[in-house]
Structures are given as C-alpha cells and as structure tokens.
C-alpha cells in the first residue's frame, strides 16, 4: 500500500488531476490538506483520499485546543517541527500522527529528546521532499543537511520515518521507486524502507480509522455490542 501522506491541494477542483497523476505513479492513495467531506473517500477502483490536517499553531495552548477540536474529523494530524516545547508535546501525544520536517526553515530540526518521546508514542517523522525538487545548489544542500541530521536522530531513537512529497502540483508526486532513491540520498540505507514505510502508514491509517468509528471510546475500550442490535 503506497500512500503519499502529504499533498497540498488548495482547491477541490484540483483533486482529479492529482488522483490521475497518483495512479500513473503507482500510488494507492493520497492524504490531502484540502477540505473534503469525509475523513476517507474511497473511489470505485479502490484508490483512497485521506483527510489530513497540518496544525501550525504558534503556542502550546492553541495547539492543544486545535488537536482536540480536529482529531475526530481527520485521518492524519501533523505538527510541523518548530519549537522544542511544541515538538515534545506533539511527540508525546498519541493523537498526533506525524512530526513534519519541510526543509525550508533554518530552525527546523529534530532533537534527540523529541525523537525518543515520539518513538515511545508511535509518532512518525515526516520528511517532505518538495524542497528538494524546487531548490537547487546551496539551498538544496541546506535542506539535505537538515533532513539527513534529523533522519539520523530518528533512526537512532527508533522513530518511524515517512517520506512524503508535500506536493503543490501533480508533477511533484513521485513513484514509490523514485522515493526510494531519494530516501537513499537522505541517508536511509534500509533496502526494505518502502515496505517498512508502507507498513507504518497502513498501521497508522487502520488505527485512526478504528478511532473514528462510533464504537471507539478509548485505547483498549470499544463498544462490541449494543442492546438494540
């Protein structure tokens, strides 16, 4: 199961173009930031669109409020890596799925403490490769440096890593095999990286789908039978 976990679609009318390109690339689904009706939309051929929220709140109280407001309406909750305080809270909170690294800001980096917290709660590091496609030369080397350092820290802490496109246009989508080559550039030498990444994504999506069902109450607690059934 190959899903691009971060596609920035601004207008719903762009969705068919992205879906067509994703199918050409051999992807099975896209996680989109655009406002779609349901957390998951399944097409006739099995292709899926997942609703994703990227929370860019600047303060911790605002971020906490937003996470609790939005969690039951989206499949993926992502928090960009900015301040250590926000990153550590997000890494430790099971409602946050991804800590995002875009490679644009100089202040972005993953700390060892954050990586350890994330590894224990199952939060994954998301590396957006859009900055590698749009930049060239020194600007790209700066992004590669940020990515390689953070990936090394995540790997040593046992934090799962996900590579996403961060695509703003359909041509920014990449096939799973092209992603594997880009992953190697970023210091991921695991030959089974794509399989492991697919497994992490599949597990994350199936867990979240269960959490979004009406029968889910809390971790380990679900309604299995109702008297009226």
């Amino acid at each position, binding site marked *: 199961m190959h899903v691009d976990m971060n596609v920035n679609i601004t207008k719903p009318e762009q969705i068919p173009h992205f879906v067509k*390109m994703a199918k050409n690339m051999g992807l099975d689904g896209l996680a989109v930031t655009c406002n779609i009706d349901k957390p998951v939309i399944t097409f006739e051929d099995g292709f899926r669109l997942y609703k994703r929220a990227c929370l860019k709140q600047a303060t911790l109280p605002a971020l906490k409020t937003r996470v609790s407001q939005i969690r039951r309406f989206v499949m993926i909750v992502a928090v960009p890596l900015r301040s250590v305080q926000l990153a550590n809270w997000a890494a430790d909170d099971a409602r946050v799925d991804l800590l995002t690294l875009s490679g644009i800001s100089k202040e972005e980096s993953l700390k060892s403490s954050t990586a350890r917290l994330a590894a224990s709660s199952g939060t994954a590091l998301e590396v957006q490769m859009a900055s590698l496609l749009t930049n060239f030369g020194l600007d790209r080397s700066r992004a590669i440096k940020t990515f390689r350092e953070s990936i090394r820290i995540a790997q040593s802490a046992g934090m799962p890593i996900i590579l996403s496109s961060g695509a703003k246009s359909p*041509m*920014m989508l*990449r096939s799973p*095999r*092209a992603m594997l*080559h880009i992953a190697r550039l970023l210091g991921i030498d695991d030959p089974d990286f794509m399989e492991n990444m697919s497994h992490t994504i599949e597990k994350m999506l199936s867990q979240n789908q269960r959490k979004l069902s009406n029968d889910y109450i809390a971790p380990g607690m679900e309604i299995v039978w109702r008297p009226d059934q």
Partner: protein
Amino acid sequence: MRTERKRYVRFRLFRDGPPINEKRLAIEIRRNLLSLFGEIIVADSKFFLTQYDETNGTGILQCNEKTLEHVLTAASLLYKIDDTLVSFKPIKTSGTIKAVQK
C-alpha cells in the same frame, strides 16, 4: 581486466507543458548529477540516453552499474525543465537493452 558493467533503465517522463527534447533532458539529468554528487560521479557514470520519445515521454537510459543509484536519484529530483514541470518515473532496470525493452 574486467569491463565495467552497464545498466539500462526504462523510464517515463510525465510532463505538464511543452515537450522536452532528448538533448535537453540529458543535460538536465547531468546537471542534477553534477550538483548532487560532483564531477567524478558524472565522469564515471557514462550516462547516455539510448532512446527517448519526446511525445509520450518514454525512454531508455544507460549508465555504469556503480553509479546507477546516483543517476536515478538525480533524475528523480528533476522537477522543472525550462517552462515544463516534469516527474521522472523509473520503470525497469536490466543489464541488457533487450531485457529492458520487454
């Protein structure tokens, strides 16, 4: 002395914009290869576009086996060539051109 092994890669270049000709595509892949990995890798790669159909974007490239990974990484990071947005998709790799054409 053992000769260096070649690798052939069948690929498809998706595009949004005017077609890219063979020479322009080869230049862009080499430029990206040079920027990412340096002159030694470009020299050792012996990268060459064996076939390329600019209308449908399909083609075959050849390179040295040892630099295959570098060449495919450089090609995968192509995004904009002149005014055309592109996405490179490697399809099949083989040691002979006959096998890669199948």
